[in-house]
């Protein structure tokens, strides 16, 4: 069965410093992977997606993630945090579609990013 684990429930950085949000997945095949962001009282917005093309994926707002099959990781990074990056981030894995899942995604528990001035 597929699963996803976000290794930190809360990350705090200072504005202008790098951001690292960690995500490990479990899968018997090479899945599709996504990162979503959710600002307070808003819906989830897709940041980026990996679908077996380039292993380094660039997303919106300067974020990127690297797919590392040997480490089963898909960590999210940004070189320099901005105050507007403060939000909750979700790592998501896409299982193989079949009669039992039909488009369902598997969400991590989320990581809250705090950005200090």
């Amino acid at each position, binding site marked *: 069965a597929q699963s996803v684990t976000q290794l930190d429930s809360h990350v705090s950085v200072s504005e202008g410093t790098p951001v690292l949000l960690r995500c490990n997945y479990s899968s018997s095949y090479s899945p599709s992977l996504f990162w979503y962001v959710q600002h307070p009282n808003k819906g989830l917005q897709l940041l980026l997606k990996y679908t077996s093309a380039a292993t380094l994926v660039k997303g919106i707002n300067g974020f990127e993630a690297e797919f590392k099959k040997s480490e089963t990781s898909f960590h999210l990074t940004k070189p320099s945090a901005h105050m507007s990056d403060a939000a909750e981030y979700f790592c998501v894995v896409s*299982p193989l579609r079949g009669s039992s899942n039909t488009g369902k995604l598997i969400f991590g528990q989320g990581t809250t990013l705090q950005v200090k001035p």
Partner: protein
Amino acid sequence: DVKVTQSSRYLVKRTGEKVFLECVQDMDHENMFWYRQDPGLGLRLIYFSYDVKMKEKGDIPEGYSVSREKKERFSLILESASTNQTSMYLCASSFAKGAYSYEQYFGPGTRLTVT
């Protein structure tokens, strides 16, 4: 741009009332989903639909029902609202092609309070 809209951003209802939450998407997506989000519990799937009039239970369907009469519209119904259904409700939609699930596009959410 994909757009998923939800009928209300904030809703306050009384215990025992019947509550309708509506979701509309404009991208001709086959799949539509209803989640609830609670602090410490993450996103939990209530119901999903992979075609008109088709639905499947998610992880926490008790106390809820759904309706999908048109491809673009997916409704969540709380037959008799209870205080433990106070939550943030999120609707999402996605394509249904290929071997993997596609990314889902989310609406802005409805924060429901049941008093």
